[in-house]
Each structure stands twice: as C-alpha cells, then as structure tokens.
C-alpha cells in the first residue's frame, strides 16, 4: 500500500503509540483487502460499546489504547451501550457490570469519541452525499450507502476505531464507484402490507444476496423509517451493506440492470421467513426500536397509543437515541402517558434482557428477532407496529 510521508511517520511511532497501533491496523487491513492507499473520512461510527456484547476484552483493549494517548482525529460517534439509567434499574444490574460498562464509555470519551450511544447517528448529524465514512453498525452502514448516498464499508469495531483515530480508511470496496453498482435484481410479486412484511422481505433478500448489492426493482415508494428497517434487515439477514430501490438517490436511475441475475420473491417466501423467525406465544415484553426509533416512528407510536394504557403485567419498551428524545419532548410525554417507557442509549439486543426472567419478546424488527434468542435466550414474536401496541395494551 502506498503511504504518504505523514502516514509513514505515524507508522514509525512519531505520533505516539496509540496512533501507531491504529495506523498499523488500517495498513494491515488495507494490505489484505487490496487497497492501494488510505483516504480521509468525514466521520467514524464505532461499535463494540455494549459491555454485554463486547466483554472484558474490549474493556482492556480500550483502556490500553486510551493509556497510549489515542484520540479521534475526525468526528466519531458511538453505538448503543448496555443500559440507560432506567434500564439499569429495571434490570437491577450488578455493580461490577455497571462499572465495566462505565469504564468502556469513559475510555471512548477520553479518546474524544462522542457519547451518542445510538445506531442511528445520522439523524443528529447527517453525512453529506458522496462523503467517505468509516462506520461500523451494519444498519447504519446500509442506510448511509443506500439512503444518504455516502460511501462506507461495513467496518468492524477495531477498524472503525482505528479510522476514527487516524481520520482515514483503506480505499477499497464501497469507497470505489465501480464496486457500488447493483449486482442482483429482486422482483416481488406482492405489495408488502406493513413494515414487518417489508423488513422480513429485507431479511430474506439478505440471505439470498450472498454479499451482492441487490436492486429492488418493483418496490413501492418507501418512507424513511421503512428504509432504515429494510437496510437493517438485509444486513442482519446476510451482510448487505448497500441496496437500491427505484427511488435511491445516487445515480441509480442511470444504472443498466437488464443483464443482472433476477431473483423473484413471492408472498409465501416472506410468510415463511416471518414464521421461521417468530413464535406465536403471548409476549411478556413488547419492544420497538431496533434500529432506534426515528421521529416518524415516535409520532406513529404516540398516535397509536393515544388513550391507551399498557397492561400492568407487561413492559412496553421503546428505544431511541438520547438526541431524538430531546428533540420532541411532547412526543415522549404522549407516549409515556400510556405507561410505555422510552429508553435511550441502549437497546434490548445489546442489553441483559435475560435478567428479567421472561420467555417471549414481541417486536416488529426481524433484526432483533434474529439476534435476541442467541444473545438473551428469549423467544421472539414478530408483529407489526400496530399489533405491538395491541399486544402491550388491553383492548
């Protein structure tokens, strides 16, 4: 890989051991991934924040990197952690778990990463179209590439952090225009009736795409929250980092897709996908906000919950970012008047749900349905937003 004189100096340790380790990571990755150089990034978004999923190894690595004096060179945001004040109390988390999580957060803060603690950092600071980013968090990667038209590979926790510290990323994959073309046509023979059907379709497309960039050629116009969940579902179903719809922004209309392999997906296939990910049992807890709810979803929830009351024996948890919670306090009040709780900084997928001793979680997110059983040992019932409200509130 070609390195500038400045980059060589960092590699030689002249900018300190933290930057040296960070650029070593980027150069080794660039070498194996076929990059010829490093390119500047406008921002980094870092995963590996929740102590539940990152563990003691992350606590130790981040402590070491902080002690080496590493600091972010570009604006850098962080993924959800394991709890906010409310969830910490609801889950009665032991002191050592709370301390380990707090040490992770203080290490990131010391390295000048922002404590955004959300998987939807783009609602606070929207990257420019065509800008280069180094983002981890697969759902945010899909959104950045496909909805915003920015360029980012699907970074891992260490490579996104290294990119934050150096302000650069290896130039390969989705940073290069020739790798951003659609590679597979998807045609559906039905109109997804709600967000759950759309997102389950996305999960199935993820499984079928095998890493290719899909073009959904006959999907209806989708709203922002539908696109956010569609990308998240594709990414959890199978590593999709970018997708096209007929309304995609960056030059999609000019792409000739006629020669691409065509995959047809029927209503039955999506029904099977929902059934495969879902249990039909009564939920103990209802969860919405994977990825974190946008303002649009909070508005929908406030409308659906008007005049309703959450059952006494059920928890209704709605996850969003601390930033979005502060944007429209009246929406949060309207939602919480029902007894539902708006949780920030975290989400059930990366928290310790198993401590609630519950069996079944209802959610509208196929991504959550995919991860929760393995991470927390609960079963999941998939239901759309309206049904989630019905499951949480008595008629």
């Amino acid at each position, binding site marked *: 890989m070609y390195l500038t004189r400045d980059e060589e100096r960092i590699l030689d340790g002249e900018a300190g051991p933290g930057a040296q380790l960070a650029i070593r990571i980027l150069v080794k990755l660039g070498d194996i991934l076929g990059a010829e150089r490093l390119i500047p990034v406008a921002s980094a978004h870092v995963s590996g924040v929740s102590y539940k999923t990152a563990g003691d190894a992350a606590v130790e690595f981040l402590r070491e990197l902080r002690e080496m004096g590493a600091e972010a060179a570009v604006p850098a945001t962080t993924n959800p952690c394991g709890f906010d004040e409310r969830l910490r109390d609801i889950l009665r988390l032991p002191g050592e778990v709370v301390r380990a999580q707090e040490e992770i957060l203080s290490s990131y803060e010391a390295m000048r990463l922002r404590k955004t603690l959300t998987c939807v950092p783009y609602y606070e600071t929207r990257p420019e179209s065509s800008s280069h980013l180094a983002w981890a968090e697969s759902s945010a990667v899909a959104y950045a590439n496909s909805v915003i038209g920015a360029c980012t590979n699907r970074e*891992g*926790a260490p490579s996104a952090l290294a990119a934050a510290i150096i302000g650069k990323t290896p130039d390969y994959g989705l940073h290069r225009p020739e790798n951003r073309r659609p590679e597979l046509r998807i045609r559906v023979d039905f109109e997804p009736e709600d967000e759950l059907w759309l997102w389950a379709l996305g999960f199935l497309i993820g499984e079928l795409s095998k890493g290719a960039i899909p073009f959904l050629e006959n999907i209806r116009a989708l709203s922002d929250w539908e696109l956010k969940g569609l990308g998240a579902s594709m990414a959890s179903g199978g590593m999709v980092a970018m997708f096209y719809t007929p309304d995609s922004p960056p030059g999609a209309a000019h792409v000739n897709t006629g020669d691409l392999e065509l995959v047809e997906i029927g209503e039955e296939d999506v029904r099977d996908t929902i059934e495969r990910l879902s249990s039909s049992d009564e939920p103990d807890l209802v969860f919405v906000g994977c990825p974190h709810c946008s303002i649009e979803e909070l508005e929908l929830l406030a409308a659906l919950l008007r005049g309703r009351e959450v059952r006494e024996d059920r928890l209704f948890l709605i996850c969003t970012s601390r930033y979005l919670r502060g944007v429209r306090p009246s929406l949060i009040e309207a939602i919480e008047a029902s007894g539902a709780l708006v949780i920030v900084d975290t989400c059930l997928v990366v928290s310790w749900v198993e401590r609630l001793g519950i069996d079944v979680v209802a959610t509208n997110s196929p991504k959550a349905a995919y991860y929760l059983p393995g991470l927390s040992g609960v079963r999941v019932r998939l239901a759309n937003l309206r049904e989630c409200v019905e499951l949480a509130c008595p008629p």
Partner: protein
Amino acid sequence: MAPEEPILVLRGRGIVEGRCRGEALVSSMPLSFLGGVDPRTGVVVERGHDLEGLSISGRILCFPHGKGSTVGSYVLLALKKRGLAPAGIVNELPDPIVVVGAVIANIPMVVGIDVGEIETGDLLELDGGAGIVRVLRRGGPRPCI
C-alpha cells in the same frame, strides 16, 4: 532456534512478523473468538466446535478463518496479556477479525496455507515475516517450549 531439517515447507503470506515454534492445534472449522474462546482461560468454548474444550494457549493455532463479532479481535489481546495467547496463527484466508487481533496482540501470523496439510500435534516453526510454516516433526509428544 537450532536449525532442524523440516519435513514439509508451506509457503503463504506473512501478516504479522515474528518467529515462533510450537505444537500445532488444527481445526477444520472457522472460529469465533468472541463467545467462542474464553478470554480468561484460553479454552475453546463454542459448542459443537472441533476444538471445544481444548486450550489454544502456546499452540500454533491453525484454522480456515475467523467468524463472528469483530470485537473478537480484542479477545486475542486479552489472552496475550494473561500469557494465554496462541504462539502463532496459521489461516487459509485472511479475515479482518483474526488479522486485527494478531496485529494488536503481536502474534506471528501467516495466511494462505492449506491447514489440511498440518495435523494437531505436529511441531511447527512459523516465520511471520517470510510467510513460511515449516513442519519439523509429525505428531509425537508435546515438546518443551
């Protein structure tokens, strides 16, 4: 290291510089470090894995490639700090999780090697700079290292 005539020389691509000698621990399955290896003991804990219950510490760990969470890279550093890391790593494919883990933990690593050529218990010498793995002895008792 005393010169010793290898019975097999495998040439791949060096990823992390450094030389080491040790007993091979070979798997035919991809390995996840996060959740798959206990960072406090160095023992593989992934259920159903062909290395389940075995310690990777001090061995030259040979497997096709990594899988799972990218935070797995940090597990290799945690093992290293406890003196429980593998002495070296041999992979068929370079995948970012293991490569980053070997870089931050400074574990000599070679990729592009058919690990099917190596058997658990073989005495190996690994040269991470040159990208070479030498099989010095097949099977046999565990050497003092």
